[in-house]
């Protein structure tokens, strides 16, 4: 599914200090690990510079002085330091890595938890893929920067600093020559990385487009083949791959240019060192080992500077990711408990809609001055054309959304005065496309009441007419339902969601009937299940089945956000109005659907 319609946020090229500080804040609970690895890095990079210095001493005090004892001492020191450094490397990799994993864990946890609180409207307008990106890849990038990024920068800074210090110790004049090269390299690095980053951003866009086209072409392959459109499609795809080629190539050669430029600048530095150093040596102001050390240090500094440039570029990426993560964290749920929200212990009672107005988008109102008084225990069937407002009424009743004007009363309370938990824990919902969670049938039914016993679950299943088909399955209640319930048929999923609702023993029952056809046997079972739930409970059903409609106490025909007709089945038929028309058409339509199922075994009459 492509997310093209949703506005993907573009991150700016400026660096947001505030976000960066907030990112660093993520490390605060684990500050010990952070400090630990920074200290270890300092140690390791000091040692790195130290090795080069020892190399110099080996030349000057060992070889040139022809002093074997001194050589042996320096070699021993070098060897010892190798082991110390290895321990250091182990420590900092481990600490930095674990810090990273912890930060990932923390961010994912916080985001997930926050998501549970957000209102339905958020999920209705945000594509699932976008949310998943935030929780997985964006948190990854933030963690990467806070650990390896920080590590690379610290390592780079420390290496460069210690190298410079050593150089200054050996010969401060030559050190200054070298230092002159550093700002040049830094500028080059920044310029390059900016251009490369811009190119990558462009590449990402083209890539999204290409992936979208590819996915669509695979999904619609039947049509392509049926219409003989293969050649044409290929030509069009060629345009995309061409654009991709150009962008990718450009990014690649820009990157390829960067390193040689840096090397060139440092070669100038080395050349100057050779020239100046040579002169100094003649004058006795510089040892051979010193020159060698200098050359080493210059090459030695190259790598960290490059790495820092790379990290700087990635930092922008990461800060952008952090901004997205924080924006998700900061988004407020629209439907919240009011201060002082109460839980009256029950929501039994009349349900009244008073002058309710509602819209999803201000330009197109869905409900206008909607009024309905439902008595306790009544079953209401909501019927009407698509888009008339039936699902909205149910969404409002379930307090997934709240009225823009008017009130909804449950019992004697304005329902916005009640806590969300008070309402939801006593509401039973069965939706049009039944959603199950991966796990066993038992676990899914138990979702209605988490601490139910096996007997209670089976009782609920029996009432919902689900028990029989569950026992027909090889593993019975332990049967795995698969992701989203994918291993079961639509009819079976419906029955399980009915059982789940029965187990929850709600005080109010809401149902959005599915329109998909199932085989006759399952159809009968589902009907029984619905009736069981409707029994004695205040029920709101968006009804499609004739049997459900007929069994309702009252039928509400909704058109254009208003009640067009209201009354019992017999009353409305007599009126020969919209309902009459709807009913007769539905009747005939059900006949046509029967044609499909003829030839399949029908159940023995109950």
């Amino acid at each position, binding site marked *: 599914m492509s997310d093209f319609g949703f506005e993907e946020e573009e991150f700016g090229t400026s660096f947001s200090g505030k976000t960066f500080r907030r990112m660093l804040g993520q490390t605060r609970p684990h500050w010990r690990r952070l400090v630990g690895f920074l200290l270890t890095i300092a140690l390791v990079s000091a040692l790195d510079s130290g090795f080069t210095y020892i190399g110099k001493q080996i030349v000057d005090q060992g070889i040139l002085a022809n002093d074997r004892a001194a050589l042996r001492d320096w070699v021993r020191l070098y060897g010892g330091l190798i082991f110390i450094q290895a321990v250091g490397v182990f420590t900092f990799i*481990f600490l930095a890595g674990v810090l990273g994993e912890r930060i990932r864990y923390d961010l994912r946890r916080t985001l997930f938890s926050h998501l549970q609180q957000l209102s339905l409207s958020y999920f209705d307008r945000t594509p699932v893929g976008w*949310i998943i990106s935030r929780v997985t890849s964006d948190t990854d990038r933030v963690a990467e920067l806070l650990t390896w990024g920080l590590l690379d920068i610290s390592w780079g800074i420390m290496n460069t600093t210690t190298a410079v210090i050593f150089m200054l110790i050996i010969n401060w004049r030559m050190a200054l020559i070298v230092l002159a090269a550093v700002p040049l390299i830094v500028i080059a690095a920044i310029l390059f990385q900016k251009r490369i980053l811009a190119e990558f951003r462009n590449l990402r866009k083209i890539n999204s487009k290409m992936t979208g086209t590819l996915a669509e072409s*695979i999904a619609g392959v039947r049509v392509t083949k049926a219409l003989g459109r293969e050649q044409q499609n290929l030509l069009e795809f060629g345009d995309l791959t061409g654009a991709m080629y150009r962008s990718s190539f450009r990014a690649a050669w820009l990157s390829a240019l960067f390193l040689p430029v840096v090397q060139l600048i440092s070669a100038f530095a080395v050349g100057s060192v050779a020239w100046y150093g040579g002169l100094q040596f003649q004058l006795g102001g510089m040892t*051979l080992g010193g020159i060698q050390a200098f050359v080493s240090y210059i090459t030695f500094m190259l790598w960290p500077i490059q790495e820092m440039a790379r990290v700087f570029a990635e930092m922008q990426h990461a800060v952008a990711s952090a901004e997205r993560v924080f924006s998700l964290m900061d988004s407020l749920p629209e439907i919240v408990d009011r201060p002082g929200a109460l839980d009256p212990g029950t929501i039994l009672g009349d349900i009244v809609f008073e002058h309710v107005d509602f819209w999803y988008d201000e330009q197109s109102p869905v409900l206008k001055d909607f009024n309905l008084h439902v008595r306790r225990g009544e079953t209401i069937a909501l019927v009407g054309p698509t888009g008339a407002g039936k699902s909205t009424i149910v969404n409002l009743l379930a307090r997934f959304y709240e009225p823009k004007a008017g009130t909804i009363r449950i019992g004697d309370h304005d329902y916005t005065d009640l806590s969300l938990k008070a309402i939801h824990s006593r509401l039973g919902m069965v939706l049009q496309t039944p959603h199950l969670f991966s796990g066993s049938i038992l676990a899914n039914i138990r979702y209605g009441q988490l601490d139910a016993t096996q007997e209670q679950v089976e009782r609920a299943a029996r009432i919902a007419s689900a028990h029989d088909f569950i026992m027909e399955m090889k593993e019975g209640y332990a049967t795995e339902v698969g992701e989203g319930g994918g291993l079961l048929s639509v009819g079976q999923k419906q029955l399980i969601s009915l059982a789940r609702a029965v187990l929850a023993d709600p005080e109010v029952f809401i149902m959005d009937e599915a329109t998909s056809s199932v085989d006759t046997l399952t159809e009968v079972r589902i009907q029984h299940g619905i009736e069981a739930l409707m029994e004695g409970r205040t029920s709101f059903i968006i009804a499609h089945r004739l049997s459900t409609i007929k069994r309702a106490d009252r039928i509400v025909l909704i058109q254009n956000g208003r009640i067009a007709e209201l009354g019992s089945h017999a009353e409305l038929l007599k009126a020969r109005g919209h309902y009459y028309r709807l009913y007769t058409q539905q009747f005939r339509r059900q006949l046509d659907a029967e044609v499909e199922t003829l030839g399949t075994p029908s159940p023995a009459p109950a």
Partner: protein
Amino acid sequence: MAVELGTSDLRDTLATRRLVGLWRLASGFRRLLLLATLGVGVASFARASSYLLVGRFVDVVLLREDLRRQLPWVAAGFIGLAFVQGGLTYASGRLAARSAEGITKRLREYLFDHLQRLSFAYHAQARTGELVQRSTSDVDAIRRFFADQAINAGRIVLMFLVNLAVLIQLDAQLGLLSVVVVPITVSMSYLFFRRISKAYEDYQEQEAVLSAALQENLAGVRVVKAFARQEFERSKFDAENWEKFRRGRRLLIMHSLHWPISDILSGLQMLFGLTIGALMVMEGRISIGTYLAYSGLIIWIIWPIRNLGRLVVEMSSGLGSYGRVAEIIREEREPLDEGSYRPSRPPQGELVFKGIGFAYPDGGGEVLEDIDLHVLPGQVIALLGPTGSGKTSLVNLLPRFYDYTSGSLLLDGVELKAYPRRYLRRHVGIVEQEPFLFSRTIRENIAYGIGREVSPAELETAARAAAIHDVILTFPAGYDTLVGERGVTLSGGQKQRVAIARTLLMDPRILILDDSTSSVDTETEALIRTALERLMQGRTSFIIAHRVQSLMIADLILVLQGGRIVQRGSHAELVGEDGLYRQIHAAQTRIEVELERELAGV
């Protein structure tokens, strides 16, 4: 890069050994790749030379007082060599990029086209998500292989060899002693990386689990809220989240052990080399200049070997991806132009089925058996029967989506299998139950089946006949409105009518339609009905009937059950027979009577 280059060649590149396959995949770019690697090798040589220059600088220039003349040359030498090195590195980087991008582009186009041309049977069992993954992430992994890993591997090997060669030139004994530890490092890396790969796989697996858990939670948000199960969901997620942390930590321990160990090995090797070198200078066996050159060179021998191990692991993902892509390439395409009979004019539309039988290629028994039928041009045939009775399979034979497995099917007197598929699909139009439209403009969707420019007049005629023209005019951009998420979302009925317009524009002689309009309200139903009837005029039509009205207008009704025609005739004839048809009709009558009774009672 010409498209023709790719389309038939890549199947020839398949090989059982994946590296060989990848090598073959690079055909046409191999010269560039080799040049790139060579360039990198020469660049290494240039760098090695700059160390030699250091050696010379020390020995000849410094110690021999020849300074004033030689010094500027030495300085210039460093810079010149850097230019050479830099220029070559850049050039080879560019060449590598050109090869990698070129190979990838060709592969992408090939896969796209190949997938389009694979048979229906293949697509019926393939999963869209997986195909997309292979065409994108796996192709990208192959790109990385050519762009980075292959060149890097080449560079490392070359760097190692070149520097070693130079070193041995300086002093053979020293050179050889410097690489004693290399085989140990390589094998240790290999061993470690096997375990790290396993740990990494576990980590990735858990990542997928976590992603799926998140997705499920998001998809079921209504259920979660309705049952107020937020806490429950949190702890469920936390279990998986923590598990990922644990596996990450385990992976880290292995990483953090590997680096220091290889660092120790490399460090000790360097120390050993430097010590021996120092002793050799002190014994007068080599010059100090040589020693300095050596101390520079040795780094560029040891470091590459350390990185090679890591590179091997990265390459394994490229190999894995290649394997998956090769699987797709291996599949046989559906031949579009194969056929001995190539008429230049559209068919009349007379069909004769003689003892036709069909079974799906992957087994599962006979889906159609013993079908005998004679259809005259322009007739309307209605197919009726329960799910799985073979109606769809029967009509799928006509455009040769699948080929019948027994019997003979004649179109205008010639066996259907003799017609090229391309021809048949041009002249057989299909309107499905749930038509698929593309994220393009309405205009482009309607003209999707036509290979030429379509005038607005033709478009409008088709749209009017399909009863969708007026609706299109109500959209913000009319015919140029985008369909789908970026534009307007069409209702089920509107999609059907656009599909009907699409088919009308194609002007096929033979028509296959599924007249189900289940999720549509009655006004639209009537419009669709009209459009379909217009569509069927003068065309041999096969209707998979769901609506009883379709049965009324059919010239011949076929009742199918279990893959066989159990009844055939006109409506009047079938009602008179004892069988399934009468049952349906009886049910209809019964319901009508019930309805009447009910209405009368109120």
